[in-house]
């Protein structure tokens, strides 16, 4: 916490100066050290009209048909003021449509009230995860600050762009036209909806929304219709970006990054309290009052894998961070082009045992964005898909890996230093027999070619690299999360 506390105080000192504005200081920093990955947090000025991507490697996999939707921030800077944190840019929803041997790419910004207001003012004025408030902002509801920039969810025949502090925003999955903020029940208007819903293989959707020491638990049917919601109390006001679930339980990991002050930007209200360890709350899906609390050592995290059970034990994988310095500090420096000095996350496995104890296994594998077979969500599985190859200087991955929890082995493909590799999605092959009968589908940003690429890899032979790669004539910044609609 000391580095981020120091940088916060320095930030405050700079703000109090009248001649040297923070924007000037950051521009100077960026000019002094613009890293080659700056495109990954670059600005996109307008929607990307549908265009064909060109096959540049391999051959199109037979039987892969569908659409990869991804979401991530793609507009950070305006003349009058810029966002100060990677998590605060405007959500750009990308649509990679794979059909036969052709791939088409389109992308549209979510047409949020935030974006309209900031376009009108020519300034990024909304307070956010790491962007301080601006007196010009007009905010009457959390959704006025909703960047809709973190993930997407297929809710029946609608595509929802997700943030974590406000409502889902519905879009047309064909045209990516924004349709509006989703109110699931009138008395729950403006309640938060995390960007990490857990979807059961039967389609039922579970999600949380965080409110300090409380969470709303959402339950939706497969078509996105409201089924139930209730508010539960949490033992601490931890930062929760993601949770996980088995078929019978919700698993809520409460890291020791705890909200202690109601302030903006949001991240400034949190303090790192490693001495308090990490708590893990397990709640029965059938009866939210039935709960167990586990404890383990302190770690920071954003992302968990799907959970499963072995006997009465609950297991799940996760990307373990040493602390939450990246959230508090690193993700601001990324968007400002300042080289990082942070330790990348590593893959871990947590076992919550029936006797109430917790086992944490740390693998010496750099990893983020863990994913797995959506048809095995909540069920026993062996494989985790994850990015890898992040290092101290870059927060971005250059490789994609598959870790087998049966063998303990990780196989990976390194795209090289010229690539910023996004999260990739597991897509089962037609008539798949085993968990390894699957493709990974996901983009990278090719920094040398200044172009977005879409890759398909074979899970069984990931180390051989893409079976097919298509290249676009545009370079889109790194995105956070996506879904495959087959």
């Amino acid at each position, binding site marked *: 916490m000391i580095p981020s506390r120091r940088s916060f105080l320095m930030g405050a000192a700079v703000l109090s100066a009248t001649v040297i504005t923070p924007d000037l200081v950051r521009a100077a920093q960026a000019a002094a050290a613009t890293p080659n990955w700056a495109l990954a947090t670059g600005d996109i000025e307008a929607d990307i009209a549908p265009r064909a991507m060109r096959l540049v490697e391999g051959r199109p996999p037979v039987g892969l048909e569908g659409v990869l939707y991804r979401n991530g921030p793609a507009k950070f800077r305006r003349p009058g003021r810029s966002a100060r944190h990677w998590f605060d840019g405007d959500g750009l929803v990308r649509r990679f449509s794979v059909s036969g041997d052709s791939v088409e790419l389109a992308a549209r910004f979510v047409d949020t009230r935030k974006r309209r207001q900031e376009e009108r003012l020519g300034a990024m004025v909304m307070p956010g995860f790491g962007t301080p408030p601006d007196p010009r902002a007009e905010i009457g509801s959390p959704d006025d600050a909703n960047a809709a920039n973190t993930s997407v969810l297929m809710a029946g025949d609608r595509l929802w762009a997700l943030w974590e502090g406000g409502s889902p925003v519905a879009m047309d999955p064909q045209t990516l036209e924004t349709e509006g903020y989703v109110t699931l029940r009138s*008395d729950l*208007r403006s*309640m938060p909806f995390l960007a990490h819903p857990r979807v059961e293989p039967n389609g039922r959707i579970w999600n949380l929304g965080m409110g300090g020491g409380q969470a709303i638990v959402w339950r939706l049917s497969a078509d996105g219709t409201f089924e139930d919601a209730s508010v539960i109390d949490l033992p601490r006001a931890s930062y929760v970006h993601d949770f996980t679930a088995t078929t019978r339980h919700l698993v809520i990991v409460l890291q020791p990054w705890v909200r202690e002050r109601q302030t903006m930007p949001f991240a400034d209200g949190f303090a790192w309290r490693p001495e308090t360890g990490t708590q893990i709350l397990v709640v029965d899906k059938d009866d939210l009052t039935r709960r167990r609390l586990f404890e383990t050592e302190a770690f920071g995290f954003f992302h968990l894998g799907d959970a499963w059970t072995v006997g009465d034990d609950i297991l799940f994988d996760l990307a373990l961070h040493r602390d939450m310095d990246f959230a508090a500090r690193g993700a601001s420096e990324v968007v400002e082009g300042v080289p990082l000095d942070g330790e990348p996350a590593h893959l871990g496995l947590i076992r919550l045992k029936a006797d109430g104890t917790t086992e944490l296994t740390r693998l010496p594998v750099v990893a983020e964005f863990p994913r797995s077979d959506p048809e095995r969500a909540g069920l026993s599985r062996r494989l985790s898909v994850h990015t890898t190859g992040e290092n101290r200087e870059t927060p971005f991955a250059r490789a994609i890996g598959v870790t087998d929890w049966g063998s303990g082995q990780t196989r990976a493909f390194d795209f090289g230093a010229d690539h910023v590799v996004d999260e990739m999605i597991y897509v089962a092959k037609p008539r798949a027999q085993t968990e390894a009968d699957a493709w990974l589908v996901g983009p990278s940003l090719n920094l040398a070619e200044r172009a977005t690429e879409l890759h398909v890899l074979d899970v069984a032979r990931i180390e051989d690299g893409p079976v097919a790669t298509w290249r676009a004539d545009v370079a889109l910044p790194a995105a956070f999360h996506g879904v495959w609609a087959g």
Partner: protein
Amino acid sequence: MKAFLAAAAAVLALAATPALAQDSTADITFTFETGQPSGQIMVALYDSQSAYDGGGRPVRVERVSVTATSSVVDFADLPAGDYAMRAFHDLNGDGEMSRNPFGMPTEPFAFSNNARGNMGPAGWDRAHFTVAGDTAQTINLAQ
């Protein structure tokens, strides 16, 4: 935000206060554009920054049933001066600003000039307007 809404709801829930006897010079007319035609609109008019920003008494309050997508509220015979207004659409007609479990409003609210606040109510600086003769504003109360 929460504190503001509590104060606003309390003030707006009061029965109409009798108009003070004074020289009549102007009418202020608000036309509220709403979404669904249900419930009522609760309106409070203030004649000073201290009352408006400081949770003081409004100079007038009014409530009107919403039976169409447009509703008119008329404050007659007001002296010239500066005013600001806050209103909410009480969709379920319970007389209170409904909120979600985390305390955020679930019913539409608005201020004169269609002013918007910044994580709170629009302040007098954004919402006040000067009345010299009859004055009309159309206020967006749709969600």
